[in-house]
C-alpha cells in the first residue's frame, strides 16, 4: 500500500476515525487498533512476511526483558548477542546472502578456484532493514540501561510496527517513541492540521518532483552510453532531486500521518542540499539512520575519544556499513566509502562541527562564500549519487568517465541543450527552481511549508493548498515505487 495510492487514501481516514471515535480515547484500544492497522498495512505488501515481522518483534521483546533481568554482565551480553545475531541473521539471509555468495565465488575464481554457491530466490521483505534497526536500538538501549523493557507486548509491538514508519522509517528510538505510545493521547487540532500540511507537501515532493525527475534520470542512466558528458550531469542532477524528494517526501507523509494520531516521529531530513560541507550534509540527510549509526556503532567503537586514527577508522566503518545497509551491491559500499573520504578533511582539520546552524539563518540570501560552499558540497554528493544509482561499479565508473570526457566537447553541450529543448521542455526545470525557492524560504522550519501562510486569511490559505493539489493533479509524473522501499 503506497502512501500515494487510492488504497492508502481509503485506509488512513478509516483508521483515523476508528482511532479517535470508536476507541473513545481508551489508550489500550487505541494501541490495539494501531497494531491491527499496522499489521494489515504490512500484510498488503505480502502477508507471508508478517510472520517475520511478528517473530522479530517477539524476539526483541523477550530478549529485552531477559537482558534487563540478567544479573551477571555475561548473561546480559549473551542475550544481547542472541538478539543481534538473529536479527542480523535474518537481514543477512534475506538481503545479503546472494551478495556474499556471488562475491565469494568471484573472489575464488580470481584465485583460479571454482565454486558454485546456491543462490536464494527470495524477495526482500519490505522494511526489513528498518524494523530490524528499530528492534536493535531497543535491546541496545536496554543493555546500556537507557530504558527499561516494555512489559506490555501490544505497546512494544506498536513501537516496532507503527504503520507510518514501518516500511521506510524514520528509524525510531524507544527512548523517543515508546513514551508517546504509553501516554494517553489527546486530539490536538493544530498538530493534526500541521500533519495534513506535511502530508500534502510530501505528496507534492514525491508525485511532482521525484516522479517527474525519475523518468529523465531513468532515461539517462539506463542508456548512459548513448549520452555525452553534460547530459550525464543532467541525469545525475535529476537523480539527486529524485532521491531527495522521494525519500524526504515519504518521510514528510510518514511524519504527517503519525501526527494525525498524536504521535511525533523523529525528523529525517533538514534541507540537506543547503549544506555547506559534507559533515553538515550528513547531519541533515536521513538523520534517523545517521544518528543510529552514531549512537549504536560509532560511539561503541570508541567514537572520537581514542585520538585521530581511531576517529578516522570509526568514520570509515560507519560510512561503509551505512552504504552496505542500503543494499547488497558494491555500488552502495563505494558510495559509503566516497562519503567517508569526503568527510575526512573536516575530521582531520576538526571543522566538522563548523556549520551547525542552517545556512544564512535569519537572512534572505546567503553570502558568496556560502553559495560556493553549498555548490561544492552538492557537487560532491552528485558524484556519490552516481554510484548509488548505477547498476554496478563498472557502470558508475564509465558514467563518470564519460562526464569527464564530455565536458571537453562543444557537441556535448549542444546535445544537452537539445535534450532540454526537445525531450524535457522547460516546465520541469521551472518546477524544480520553484521547489528550491520554496525550500529556501522555509529552510528554518521543520519542513518547507510548515509556517507558510499560517497567518493568512483562511480563503487565501486554502487557495494555497488548492494550488498544491492542482500542481499534483497536473504535473504528477508516472507513478514510481518509493526508492527506499527496496532497502
Amino acid at each position, binding site marked *: 500500500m503506497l502512501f500515494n495510492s487510492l488504497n492508502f487514501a481509503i485506509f488512513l481516514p478509516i483508521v483515523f476515525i476508528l482511532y479517535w471515535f470508536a476507541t473513545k480515547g481508551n489508550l489500550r484500544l487505541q494501541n490495539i487498533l494501531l497494531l491491527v492497522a499496522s499489521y494489515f498495512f504490512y500484510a498488503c505488501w505480502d502477508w507471508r512476511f508478517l510472520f517475520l515481522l511478528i517473530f522479530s518483534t517477539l524476539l526483541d521483546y523477550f530478549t529485552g526483558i531477559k537482558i534487563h533481568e540478567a544479573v551477571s554482565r555475561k548473561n546480559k551480553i549473551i542475550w544481547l548477542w542472541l538478539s543481534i545475531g538473529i536479527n542480523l541473521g535474518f537481514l543477512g539471509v534475506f538481503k545479503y546472502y546472494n551478495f556474499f555468495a556471488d562475491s565469494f565465488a568471484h573472489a575464488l575464481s580470481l584465485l583460479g578456484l571454482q565454486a558454485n554457491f546456491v543462490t536464494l530466490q527470495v524477495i526482500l521483505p519490505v522494511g526489513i532493514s528498518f524494523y530490524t534497526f528499530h528492534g536493535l536500538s531497543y535491546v541496545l538501549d536496554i543493555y546500556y540501561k537507557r530504558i527499561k523493557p516494555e512489559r506490555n507486548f501490544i505497546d512494544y509491538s506498536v513501537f516496532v510496527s507503527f504503520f507510518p514508519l514501518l516500511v521506510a522509517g524514520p528509524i525510531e528510538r524507544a527512548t523517543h517513541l515508546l513514551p508517546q505510545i504509553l501516554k494517553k493521547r489527546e*486530539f490536538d487540532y493544530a498538530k493534526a*492540521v500541521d500533519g495534513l500540511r506535511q502530508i500534502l507537501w510530501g505528496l507534492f515532493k514525491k508525485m511532482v518532483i521525484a516522479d517527474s525527475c525519475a523518468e529523465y534520470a531513468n532515461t539517462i542512466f539506463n542508456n548512459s552510453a548513448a549520452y555525452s558528458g553534460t547530459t550525464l550531469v543532467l541525469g545525475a542532477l535529476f537523480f539527486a532531486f529524485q532521491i531527495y524528494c522521494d525519500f524526504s517526501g515519504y518521510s514528510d507523509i510518514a511524519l504527517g500521518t503519525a501526527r494525525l494520531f498524536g504521535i511525533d516521529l523523529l525528523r529525517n531530513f533538514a534541507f540537506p542540499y543547503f549544506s555547506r560541507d559534507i559533515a553538515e550534509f550528513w547531519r541533515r540527510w536521513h538523520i534517523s539512520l545517521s544518528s543510529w549509526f552514531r549512537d549504536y556503532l560509532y560511539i561503541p567503537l570508541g567514537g572520537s575519544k581514542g585520538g585521530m586514527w581511531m576517529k578516522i577508522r570509526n568514520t570509515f566503518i560507519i560510512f561503509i556499513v551505512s552504504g552496505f545497509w542500503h543494499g547488497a551491491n558494491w555500488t552502495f559500499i563505494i558510495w559509503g566509502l566516497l562519503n567517508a573520504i569526503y568527510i575526512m578533511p573536516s575530521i582531520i582539520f576538526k571543522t566538522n562541527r563548523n556549520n551547525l546552524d542552517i545556512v544564512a539563518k535569519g537572512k534572505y540570501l546567503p553570502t558568496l562564500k556560502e553559495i560556493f560552499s553549498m555548490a561544492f558540497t552538492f557537487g560532491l554528493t552528485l558524484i556519490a549519487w552516481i554510484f548509488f544509482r548505477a547498476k554496478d561499479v563498472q557502470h558508475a565508473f564509465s558514467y563518470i568517465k564519460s562526464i569527464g570526457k564530455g565536458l571537453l566537447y562543444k557537441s556535448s553541450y549542444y546535445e544537452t541543450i537539445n535534450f532540454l529543448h526537445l525531450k524535457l521542455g522547460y516546465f520541469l526545470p521551472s518546477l524544480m527552481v520553484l521547489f528550491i525557492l520554496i525550500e529556501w524560504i522555509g529552510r528554518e522550519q521543520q519542513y518547507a511549508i510548515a509556517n507558510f501562510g499560517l497567518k493568512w486569511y483562511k480563503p487565501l490559505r486554502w487557495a494555497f*493548498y488548492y494550488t498544491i493539489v492542482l500542481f499534483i493533479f*497536473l504535473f504528477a509524473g508516472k507513478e514510481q515505487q518509493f526508492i527506499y522501499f527496496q532497502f
Partner: protein
Amino acid sequence: MRKFIKNTLLFLLITFFITAAFIFMSNKKIENGDYFRLRKKGTKYIVFGHSHPQYALNDSLIDNLENYAQSSESYFYTFLKIKKIITSNKQIKAVFIEFTNNQVVDGKDNVIWGDQYLSFRYPKYASLMNIKDLLYLFTKNPKIFINSQSLTFKENLLFLIENKVNYINYKNWGSYFFSKNHNTDSLLNLISKNPKLKNNFSEISETKIMFGIFLI
C-alpha cells in the same frame, strides 16, 4: 475534533466538486467542439481495429484512406471513436472494422478495464462517454477509474489551455505503425507442429460481441 473533520471534509468536497465539474465541463466542451477532423482532407475510408490492421495497412500508400487502428483496442473504445469520427466528418464513405477472433473471444475483456488498459484508454475517450459507459467502467475497475480522473483532468486542461485544434492527434487515437518483425512464418510453423493451437478458441465474450454489433 469536530472542527478538524468539518474543515477536512469541506476541503475534500470542494476538491471533489471542482475536479468533477471541470472534468464534466471540459469533456462537454471537447465533445461539442470542432476538434475531431481527420488528419487528411480527402479521406473517404477509415480503418479501425487493434494491432493487426494498425501494422497491416500503410495509409500513406493507399489513396483516400486513413488508419485509426490501435494496439489492443477493444470494440468498446472503437465504438466511441467511430461514432464521433463519422459524425464529425461527413465525407466518409466507408468504415472498415477489423474482425478477428480475439476481438470477440471471452477471457480477454481485461483489455477494456484491466489496470493498464483502462488507465491508458480512459483519458483518450472520456469526453465521449455517457453516464452508462462511465458507470460500466467504474463498476469493473473502480480503483483505476478513479485514478484515471486526474490524468483526464490534466490532459483536458492542457488541451484547452494550449488551444489545440485536433483532439484526435492530441490524444493519439491510432495510426499506422511500421514493424520490422515478421512472425507469420514462424507462427504458421508452430501451428503446423501443434495442431491443437489451430482450434484454440475460447468462448465468445458477450460484452465484446455486443459492442461489435453496436459498431455495425
